[in-house]
């Protein structure tokens, strides 16, 4: 065990190795590690953001769905109301029309009855006159008693 210039050679070698390591080995590896660390952190942050956005979107979708349901319910209610109204109107119209037609039929029946009664009266009057004529033919002069006959006709 004796000291010699190996000591110096070793120191020089050591310094060279450290310099090389510091210049060409450590920085690239540390860079890669740092970059990866950053990428992973970014990725995690992005994932968090995505999750948050997903939550927001889900919330929004829920809101929209609820609105749509409410709207649909409103539309349906309105439509039902309107339908009921239309039915009611139709009922009213039908009723009125029925009443109108009933009235018209009644009027027409009354008219017919009147006409029939009129013609019946005339026929009865004519029969009465004819009967009276037959009775009076012999005693009554048609010309002299015409006014009397007309009066009788009117009374019948």
């Amino acid at each position, binding site marked *: 065990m004796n000291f010699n210039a190996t*000591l110096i050679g070793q120191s020089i070698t050591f310094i060279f*190795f450290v310099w090389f390591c510091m210049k060409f080995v450590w920085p690239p590896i540390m860079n890669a590690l740092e970059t990866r660390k950053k990428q992973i952190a970014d990725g995690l942050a992005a994932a968090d953001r995505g999750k948050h956005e997903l939550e927001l979107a889900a919330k929004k979708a829920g809101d929209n769905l609820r609105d749509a349901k409410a709207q649909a319910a409103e539309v349906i209610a309105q439509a039902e109301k309107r339908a009921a109204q239309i039915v009611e109107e139709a009922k009213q119209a039908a009723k009125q029309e029925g009443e109108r037609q009933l009235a018209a039929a009644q009027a027409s029946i009354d008219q017919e009855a009147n006409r029939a009664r009129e013609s019946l009266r005339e026929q009865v009057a004519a029969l009465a006159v004819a009967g009276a004529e037959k009775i009076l033919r012999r005693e009554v002069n048609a010309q002299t008693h015409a006014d009397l006959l007309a009066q009788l006709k009117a009374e019948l």
Partner: protein
Amino acid sequence: MASEYASSGEYIKHHLQNLTYGQLPAGYERHDHHGNVEVLQQATWTVAHNAEEAKAMGFWAINLDSMAFSIGLGLLFLFFFRLAAKRATAGIPAGLQNFVEWIVEFIDGAVKGSFSHRNPLVAPLALTVFLWVFLMNFMDLLPVDWLPYVASMAGVPFLKVVPSTDPNVTFGLSLSVFFLVLYYSVKMKGPGGFFAELAFQPFPKFLFPVNLLLEGVGLIAKPISLALRLFGNMYAGEMIFILIALMFGGNFVLGLFGGALQWAWAVFHILIITLQAFIFMTLTIVYLDMAHSEHH
């Protein structure tokens, strides 16, 4: 393999000898295996053939095996990490990138846990320290005779394959860290602040020689303990591997027992080598953190 050596002592000595290249002074007497003596006419650059020659080469010699293995392992680490760094994507990591990211994040966590200031140097420094020391320690798990045996086939007389059992290597690391500590202490606190930290605590100012002595010892102890802890652990571990390997030279039963022991010690050593690398790294971070902090 131990049987190839004259004695167990020689086997151990052989395994603890670095492949040292340096200059032997003129007039140095070289003894070879056969007892022949060669007197060098002039100073000669050569590979030491034994521990005495390595010592005679003085400071300006270099342990070729330590340098080769440490540089090779360091390059191995840098090659794979650079490869991963080049291909690093922020997308889905696979294979090598996964592994590298796992280690980088582990180191980053350790640095963030112990270092409370901003300094782009510390984390790469910790990564380099941890992996390089780990890989150097890892060589300890290779059976002690494999690489030296292959080397001796190729005519290389010594080969110590675990660089962290060479104090030159561990001190090279710890002294570099120590200079960084000094640099950042002065840079962050100013020369005056650093001196005040050494001289004006823990006792009142008028006792500054005592403070200086205490804090100075504390300061110097940092690199020494850092280097010796790693060296001591790895050297001791290696020594035990060598002692176990001695059993393979005995009879069959002893060899089998040695094999079981080696396996058990290697399993235990997986913990040791990782732990030592981790301790070295953590203390490096802590020392640098102390250098950045106003009070400790």
